[in-house]
């Protein structure tokens, strides 16, 4: 038995680890075990990738099977890391259609969580771009799924948190890019209303995201920096910084946090100081386009190796909700207000606009999503329960890939596709056979 956690380091459960070194191992592993779920790189935050009894490590399925350099179509095994794929495709002028906030996720995990990126308002989630995948079912059978073949299984598996089987490999098409740079424009928003307006206004941009200073109170509640960006063209490069190499060199040294910081490192004062600095640094560059390399634009936190350790040994809770557009201004203001009044701060608050999602358990719906981090504490649980009520009443939901604690009632209220998802699970004999701590906790 191995103690396992997600990226938030809460909760911790002991689980037996078994490893699939090859797709050929899966049929027998699936057929002969029960109470398991597949785990990629363990970057979901809560208990989604911890098997009820057994956790099936899929990182050995890490071969890129095909990469068509003309069309940009790739076929990869599910355990391939996004970072690995980026290293291969970016220098050749391609970029994945959707990337989440970290590149240290597996492709299988990206499908299972139907991850969204800073371009969701325009391009949808990762699942919308997956053309086909093969799936090992609970009885060990291997089936192909696409919009035309086993469509119910296809839709359920996208965002299905690994609960319909183990994804073996998937095919999708990359987008061509001319350079490895982003042409970024930062806008300053002095409060939440302005921030949401700025996000709506920048919806013509391929990528947009707002960083919210959640310690700002009163009239400044929700003051934000909005980062809008496009993949820079060769023309952009010439115009903004002539002579720049087309692809920025890969960053070498990574800063690692080698030990858990004492929990009190993050107090109101330190976060407040950090936020102030960050805000000012951003504001200096505001409103004129400039170039940033793709890596820090998409994955700013990846440069700090184990940033999850800054919250100390007890771990942290990440709360990501989405609220439909109509209710978003009022509900998100209320959430930010409650957070900003708290003594213990949220290090990270991110606001994004989302379009509709398509999987049975996909997170996105048309509206705004807000992401907060809170160190684990009794008061944090109580506060988040209150926030959940606000979200659910407004017709919103919580992101399963981040969740470690929502109640079954909150979950059921947020996910009307659950009944359909359960039908699909029933049809393939998944109940009792494929189960994670998340699925047991939420009664999936």
């Amino acid at each position, binding site marked *: 038995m191995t103690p396992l956690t997600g990226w938030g380091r809460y909760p911790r459960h002991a689980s037996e680890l078994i490893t699939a070194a090859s797709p*050929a191992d899966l049929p027998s592993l699936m057929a002969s075990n029960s109470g398991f779920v597949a785990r990629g790189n363990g970057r979901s935050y809560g208990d989604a990738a911890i098997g009820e009894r057994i956790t099936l490590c899929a990182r*050995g399925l890490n*071969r890129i*099977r*095909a990469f068509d350099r003309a069309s940009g179509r*790739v076929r990869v*095994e599910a355990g391939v890391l996004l970072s690995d794929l980026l290293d291969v495709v970016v220098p050749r002028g391609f970029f994945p259609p959707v990337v989440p906030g970290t590149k240290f996720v597996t492709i299988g995990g990206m499908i299972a969580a139907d991850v969204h990126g800073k371009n969701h308002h325009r391009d949808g989630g990762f699942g919308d771009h997956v053309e086909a995948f093969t799936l090992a079912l609970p009885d060990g059978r291997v089936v192909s799924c696409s919009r035309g073949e086993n469509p119910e299984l296809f839709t359920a598996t996208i965002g299905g948190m690994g609960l319909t089987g183990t994804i073996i490999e998937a095919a999708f098409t990359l987008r061509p890019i001319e350079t490895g740079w982003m042409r970024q424009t930062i806008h300053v928003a002095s409060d939440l209303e302005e921030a949401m307006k700025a996000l709506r206004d920048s919806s013509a941009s391929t990528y947009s995201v707002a960083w919210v200073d959640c310690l700002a109170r009163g009239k400044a509640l929700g003051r934000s920096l909005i980062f809008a960006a496009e993949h820079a063209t060769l023309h952009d490069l010439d115009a903004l910084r002539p002579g720049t190499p087309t692809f920025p060199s890969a960053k070498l040294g990574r800063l690692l946090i080698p030990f858990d910081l004492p929990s009190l490192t993050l107090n109101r004062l330190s976060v407040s100081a950090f936020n102030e600095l960050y805000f000012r640094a951003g504001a200096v560059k505001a409103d004129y386009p400039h170039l940033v390399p793709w890596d820090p634009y998409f994955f700013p936190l990846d440069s700090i190796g184990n940033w999850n350790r800054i919250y100390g040994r007890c771990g942290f809770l990440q709360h990501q909700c989405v609220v439909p557009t109509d209710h978003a201004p009022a509900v998100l203001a209320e959430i930010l207000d409650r957070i900003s009044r708290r003594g213990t701060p949220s290090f990270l608050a991110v606001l994004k606009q989302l379009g509709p999602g398509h999987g049975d358990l996909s997170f996105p719906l048309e509206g705004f999503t807000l992401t907060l981090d809170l160190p684990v504490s009794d008061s944090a649980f109580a506060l988040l329960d209150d926030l959940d009520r606000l979200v659910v009443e407004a017709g919103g939901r919580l992101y399963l890939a981040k969740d470690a604690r929502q109640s079954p009632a909150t979950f059921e209220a947020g996910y009307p596709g659950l009944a359909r998802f359960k039908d699909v699970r029933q049809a393939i004999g998944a109940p009792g056979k494929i189960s994670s701590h998340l699925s047991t906790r939420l009664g999936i």
Partner: protein
Amino acid sequence: MTTRTLLLIGGTSDIGRATALRYAQEGWRVMLAARNDEEAQRNGEDIAARTGAEVTVHRLDILETESFTSFLDKLPHQPDTAVCVVGELGDQVRAQSDPDHARLLLRTNFEGPALLLGILAERFLERRSGAIVGVSSVAGDRGRASNYLYGAAKAGFTAFLSGLRNRLAPEGIRVVTVKPGFVRTQMTAGMKLPPLLTAEPQEVGAAIYEAAERGRGDVIYVRRLWRPVMMAIRFIPEPLFKRLKL
């Protein structure tokens, strides 16, 4: 410049995969040989996708020594460099009482690789070019109770490579002996390994490329610390050594 060709024997191992990938990144064409050609195909496709190199996969069982000549004849290209990473750690305790298992270890780790590289050496000699890399083991440096059948076979392989190098050096053909030490692979998954003495497969691949193609060393330990460690182990006097638990 014409494309050079690598023959990688043991194409499903982690070290084999990493080595072939390194060569492909340097612009080489790769021929992967393995008993399980389906698994080798996975690695072949992966290397081709990552590098754009031409990769072919060929079935070879290192125990079927009589097939070696026809195997080499049927290859689409004559290799410029041949790297043999074949190895089977096996089960020492089982090998002590099961002669079949002992024979499997001796043949897989010594007989097969030596015979195959021997045939290749004659061909390289005929055309007066080529490089040969054999992945042996620190276990062959001195026999120890915990793995002496594997160690004995690797010691034989080390001696074979040493002799071959001695004979072929004047003809301009490189022979490299690699002793990787601990490597983080499927074979060692779950073992507790000392970090300073444990290499990643990529490090082994890079060390092989550097030694064979850039002339960096004839007998290489991938992690440098292994050299003094094995030196010390070799110099322990036998009356003392035989009492140690190693």
